[in-house]
């Protein structure tokens, strides 16, 4: 416990140091285009209380959540199926490779053209960009499933549900965790691009507005707010989940 709080304290020191360096550099440069930490934090506070930051943050996080869930669920199902059935793998492997190499920007533009500047098109574009990496990761995990344990489950007549919960999922969980963490990192970057291209709200849209206004202070403030939320999800949800799931490794 003492070691944990010491680690937290050092992280705090490191963060304060970064803010101090930033502020000092800004004063040295002394330009409207490079606002200091104080000015940005002020803008952050101001936009949170009086401006639209919470609304935009909400809109973006909603898109992230839906795209993330869709990509994870569809990718897991497809990945497991391709890992189990060789014919499916042969049939669809090149599709996955194609999708892996199709830039997110292209997917977004095409979907906007075909389906209009809608939220559905935006979310689908983000989910499709993430989907192939989930498929590839889970396919790998499925191929690595232990045949001996599968035999054990069959001989003891565990049934589909217990086999899935106690035998299969624990083996896939490291792969699911990798897919989740890399997925979140990828999706929250892509979602900004998609918003910038064709949505009337969200962090990505606001970044574009502040870019056109050369309002660097607010631009950084919005970006920081979003990064903070994503980091909070990573630290407060995904990392503890990983520790819990992999506890047995000791």
């Amino acid at each position, binding site marked *: 416990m003492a070691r944990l709080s010491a680690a937290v304290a050092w992280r705090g020191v490191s963060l304060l140091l970064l803010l101090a360096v930033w502020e000092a550099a800004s004063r040295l440069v002394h330009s409207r285009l490079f606002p200091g930490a104080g000015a940005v934090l002020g803008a952050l506070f101001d936009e949170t209380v009086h401006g639209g930051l919470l609304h935009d943050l909400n809109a973006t996080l909603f898109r992230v959540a839906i795209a993330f869930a869709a990509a994870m669920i569809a990718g897991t199902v497809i990945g497991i199926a391709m890992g189990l059935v060789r014919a499916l793998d042969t049939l669809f492997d090149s599709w996955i490779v194609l999708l892996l190499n199709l830039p997110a920007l292209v997917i977004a533009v095409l979907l906007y053209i075909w389906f209009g500047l809608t939220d559905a098109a935006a979310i689908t574009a983000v989910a499709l960009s993430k989907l192939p990496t989930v498929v590839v990761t889970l396919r790998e995990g499925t191929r690595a499933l232990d045949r001996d*344990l599968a035999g054990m489950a069959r*001989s003891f007549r565990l049934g589909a549900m217990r086999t899935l919960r106690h035998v299969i999922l624990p083996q896939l969980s490291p792969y699911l965790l990798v897919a989740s963490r890399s997925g979140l990192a990828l999706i929250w970057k892509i979602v900004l691009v998609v918003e910038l291209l064709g949505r009337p709200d969200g962090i990505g849209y606001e970044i574009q507005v502040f870019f056109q206004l050369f309002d660097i202070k607010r631009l950084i403030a919005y970006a920081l707010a979003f990064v903070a939320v994503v980091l909070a999800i990573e630290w407060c949800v995904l990392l503890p989940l990983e520790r819990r799931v992999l506890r047995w490794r*000791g």
Partner: protein
Amino acid sequence: MTTGITLEIDEKRYPAEGGHDAVVALRGLRARIAPNEFCVLFGPSGCGKSTLLNIIAGIDPSFSGNIRFDGDCEPRIGYVFQAPRLLPWRTVRENLELVLRRDADPAVVEALLGEVGLAEAAGFYPSRLSGGMARRAALARAFAIDPDLLLLDEPFVSLDAAAAVRLRALLLRLVTTRPATVLFVTHDAAEAVTLADRILLLTPSPGRVLAELPISIPRDQRCDHHTIAKLSGQLAGLGARPPPH
């Protein structure tokens, strides 16, 4: 209810794969195992003993022939594999609880863990167990379902001699208090003659029953080296004889 089994396996073949030719593991194997019998399948490595157990356990359905159990309902089968095959992400206790039937009394888990000497280790993950402890856990798991039929595939291989002796004694104790038909696979003659009511001697691949050796001496009178050596000699003699046609 312990169950008798009738084995009629015409052929078990592994198809050619990855540059290997097709292999016929079993051919024309006929045997009858009586209820409550402790039957040892004895034969050289690679004669299809494990394959046979997998077929009986229903893990491997691709063979031609018949496995018939006495009675109408499907027997409960406890399987002790060559490797313990415990779930590494479940504690010892959870590994046992997992296989329990829905109508089973959960107290059986603690009772069994006590009997195999793992009461203290019930909360451990399998990675913390020694080789012998993991075998005992696997043994307890097989008994946890109150099996009609117990399949054991060289369960004590790769243990040191003293530990193997202790585990054999443990197995016999468990079978005495919880009767079951037992099929025990081994290629160790001394182990075979120490445990068996009857030994079925299998041929090299493709495996079938070459001969059988019933042992009528009570188990507690065949623990000495002399008797074991004599019985092992008989077993070797059976194997050396040309197969009758």
